């Protein structure tokens, strides 16, 4: 095992070298190329001035040297083993070990490490929230669809998932902002950014003027949610449907009423009917988890509404709630596509194993269906999910270009795109280097995880 890991680690070095060579060549060979000229952005300057500027940038970044020399210089500066260089790029010694240096970004004029350190936490936050969400929902839906193969749930889920998968993030984000963040429709969420200006002056946790208000809120939310969930779990189908019908109708009515433009009788009735149908449909479901989720969220909402009605004074939401509020739309946008894909993947993986010989043997032995599914089949179905998760690590760093751009979040995705657009060579090379490294590490980890999940796989 150890030799295997070592071998893989050593193999990474030439792969990474290859990646950087390709990126470097592509950037240097692109029309326009990287030259001091593109840094000068030279309009409205006299030629002497422009020349002076070019010389300045050439001196600073060594852009007038032949491309192979530039590449060698860059390689030397990022490598932990190499020559020492002074400011002009002349070699001053051979100290062997030195601190790797990713260089200075052309556009920002600041060390690349600083830029990445500044942007990374934001991207990490988004991904840490959305990745577990994707996995939990995708596995739940996928396994359920596989066990209910060909039945109503399977077809409904596959239609919805296919629909989700085909909606481009760009469109979804713009529509969400247009409908859920605009005062023309429902202004429930902010249009962008990570916190409101006012939230910066707030305390971190929510605060209320009277001491019992927060407690009352928590208790009410808990009570309502618990009551709704118990109802969803214990009660038979018909009373459930009735409750769903009523809740949905109330919700639909309230939503339309919130809308200034459409506040007519017919649309109010329409909203109510649509909500009622949706509520009844969801409440009718045989899937406990879904019911719990739907009724639980309805319970939380009613709890909040009841608390708001009882509360003597409005409370300060605090920085934390404000941040969460800002993250809702971006996280949904970031999740739904991957969710649909993973759910489809896990469905087919589980399905394949459910009909396999070992599952039939287990059933024949008298193992109950639940244990067959989760102890035998599910474990074996994890393999394709692990393969996909190998790309998780680099995506944690890469961020999402589209979501970050739509919701004005200054994360890694935007940094990378700006770097490419402005031909910021140092930044592009560093980002590709790091994400290449993370991809390779991700594949290595995935390969190791195979061995853990599947005893047949061994590297000795």
């Amino acid at each position, binding site marked *: 095992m150890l030799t295997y890991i070592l071998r893989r680690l050593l193999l990474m070095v030439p792969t990474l070298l290859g990646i950087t060579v390709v990126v470097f060549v592509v950037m240097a060979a692109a029309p326009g190329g990287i030259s001091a000229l593109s840094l000068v952005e030279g309009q409205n300057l006299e030629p002497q001035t422009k020349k002076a500027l070019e010389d300045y940038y050439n001196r600073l970044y060594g852009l007038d040297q032949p491309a192979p020399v530039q590449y060698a210089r860059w390689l030397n500066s990022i490598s932990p083993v190499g020559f020492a260089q002074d400011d002009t790029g002349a070699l001053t010694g051979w100290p062997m070990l030195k601190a790797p240096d990713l260089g200075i970004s052309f556009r920002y004029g600041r060390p690349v490490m600083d830029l990445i350190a500044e942007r990374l936490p934001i991207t990490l936050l988004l991904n840490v929230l959305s990745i577990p969400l994707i996995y939990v929902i995708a596995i739940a839906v996928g396994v359920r669809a596989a066990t209910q193969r060909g039945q109503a749930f399977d077809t409904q889920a596959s239609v919805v998932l296919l629909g989700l998968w085909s909606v481009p993030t760009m469109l979804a984000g713009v529509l969400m902002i247009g409908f859920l*963040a605009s*005062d023309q429709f429902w202004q429930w969420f902010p249009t962008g950014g990570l916190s409101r200006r006012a939230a910066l002056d707030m305390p971190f946790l929510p605060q209320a003027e009277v001491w019992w208000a927060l407690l009352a809120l928590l208790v009410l939310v808990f009570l309502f949610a618990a009551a709704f969930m118990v109802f969803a779990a214990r009660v038979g189908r018909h009373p459930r449907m009735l409750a769903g019908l009523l809740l949905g109708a109330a919700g639909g009515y309230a939503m339309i009423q919130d809308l200034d433009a459409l506040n007519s009788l017919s649309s109010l009735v329409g909203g109510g009917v649509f909500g009622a149908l949706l509520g009844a449909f969801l409440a009718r479901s045989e899937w406990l988890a879904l019911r719990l989720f739907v009724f639980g969220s309805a319970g939380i909402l009613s709890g909040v509404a009841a608390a708001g009605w009882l509360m003597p004074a409005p409370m300060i939401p605090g920085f934390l709630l404000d941040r969460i509020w800002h993250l809702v739309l971006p996280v949904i946008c970031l999740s739904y596509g991957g969710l649909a894909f993973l759910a489809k993947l896990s469905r087919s993986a589980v399905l394949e194993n459910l009909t396999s010989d070992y599952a039939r043997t287990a059933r024949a032995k008298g193992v109950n269906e639940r244990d067959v599914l989760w102890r035998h089949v599910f474990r074996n179905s994890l393999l394709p999910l692990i393969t996909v998760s190998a790309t998780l690590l680099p995506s944690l760093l890469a961020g999402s270009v589209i979501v970050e751009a739509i919701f004005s979040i200054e994360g890694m995705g935007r940094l990378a795109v700006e770097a490419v657009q402005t031909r910021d060579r140092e930044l592009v090379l560093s980002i590709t280097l790091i994400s290449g490294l993370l991809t390779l590490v991700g594949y290595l980890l995935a390969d190791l995880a195979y061995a853990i999940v599947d005893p047949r796989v061994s590297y000795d």
Partner: protein
Amino acid sequence: MSRHLGWIVSLIVLGVLLLLVMVQVDRQWQRLTGMEDLMREQSQDLRTLRTSLQRLERELAAGDFALGRGERPSADFPAAFERAREATEAPDYAQGDWLVRAFATGLATLTPFVSSDAYAAEVQSYVMESLLQRNPDTLEWEGLLARSWAFSDDGMVLTFRLRPGLRFSDGEALTAHDVAFTFRFVMDERIAAPRSRAYLEKLESVEALDDLTVVFTFAEPYFNALQLAGGLEVLPEHFYSRYLDDPETFNQSRGILLGSGPYRLANPLTWTPDSGRVELERNPRYWGPVDPPFERLVWRVIQNDSARLTTFRNGEIDVYGARPREYARLRDDEALRERAEAHEYMSPTAGYAYVAWNQERDGQPTRFADRRVRLAMSYLTDVARVIDEVMLGYAEPAVSPFSPRSEQHDPQHTPIPYDVERAQALLAEAGYRERNRDGVLVNEAGEPFSFDLVFFQENEDTQRMVLFLRDIYARAGIELRPRPTEWSVMLDLLNRKDFDAITLAWTSGVETDIFQMFHSSQAVAGGDNFINFRHPELDRAIEAARGEVDEEARMALWREAERILYEEQPYTFLMRRQTLAFIDRRIQNLEQTQLGLNLGAIPIEIYVPAERQRYGR
């Protein structure tokens, strides 16, 4: 496992709660530190106040004063503040509220002289001040930090006398030494300000004679000397001088910004671009006689166009700049009209769009080297229809590089009309005519008249305009091949002068210099005369104008230069675009000045009446 689940969950919840409370306490601590800083600042102010009061008392007791002696700040109200003072006399004038605007791209840095984008310059204009500024009505120079100024007889030495009692926002006094320091600082090779350094190269030295007198010495006579010296934004020496020993920190900084302007960063050192917003607070120690109305100025970074529009509709930002098509559509939008007023105005600094005809390629003169061909192209370019159909009327035809409202422009020169017959006559004279009845113009050798037009691919309006031009040229038998191009590729083409024709726009100022684009000395590699236009008569006119310090005489020379440009048509001048913006209705006293809308005018003239204020404390 499942037996312990309850315990595990409660333990996790407890841990998370503990963590949250810790963060809460940490935030409180930071806030307390901020308050402490504020109190220290205030007590320092109180101390200065007490000292000056004591000195006054001593002088009073000693009877050591006389009326009319010394420089009294109250006696001469600075003319630059006249408009702002008038605004304060409006019946509904009130201080308070915030002005919130949006940037379409993130800022790299706010540090003065290191930053190069227009957004950073906008923020800096509220924090830094210069010696002079232009009066928005008359466009004359007025003293801001400077009280008076005078040229020496040869126009090479410019002496400024500063106002007494100027202060930076940290309470230190602003003196002539700070002005001299600013020049020294920018000219230091280790500071990453090559752009400003190149601009200030015309100055030989800047010296402070005493606390209130500073002398700018020029290396050569320069027509724009007043702008160069009077527009220099003054850095506080006590704050920035440490970066001369540590230039790296300054060059790589994200926002080291401190000045004497009406607003300041809450902390001049700690701004970071990842917060997605820039926020300035009112400078409590502002020296000016009129306090700025807004409590805070906020800029939010919102890159996505539709998100920006929705945010504006929600009332979270106060200004929304629109493109012509969008503007025309939104003007009819009831909901938007209710809360925002549409403004369309011509900024005197609005640049002009043009098509430039390359006259020499690979050492060979091109077909555009012939004046008749260029003139014919101008006759064929139906600018009025381009403005009508592409810009929806939100532009005016450009005649020359000079703004039609400036003295540089001669009203005799009117836009060249669309005239196919004259164009065809001129082209026939130059040897291009239809020879085999296929509607295509060919020269004597039978080669068809066709050329590439290079343009910037990202701009939709330009794209539409190029397609429109292709159609009207095609009708005259000329083939235009559109070549959409990326910005860096375009710069490369310009540098190598490797193109037939290109469409671009130049920005202009109140007084526009055309040396770079049209003087033959600038036709070298890397010069902005990228069309190889050489005209000795024009060269002489430009040189004479640039060396002429007397305004009357200079304007006559500029008009002479314009005549040559008008006759020669090295560019086909297209249009100047209007600025189109929607502005929240609660903002009052918006008006058009000679410098465009006074939204960004400093000292600030706009305000929000008390009952309509949205943000408060």
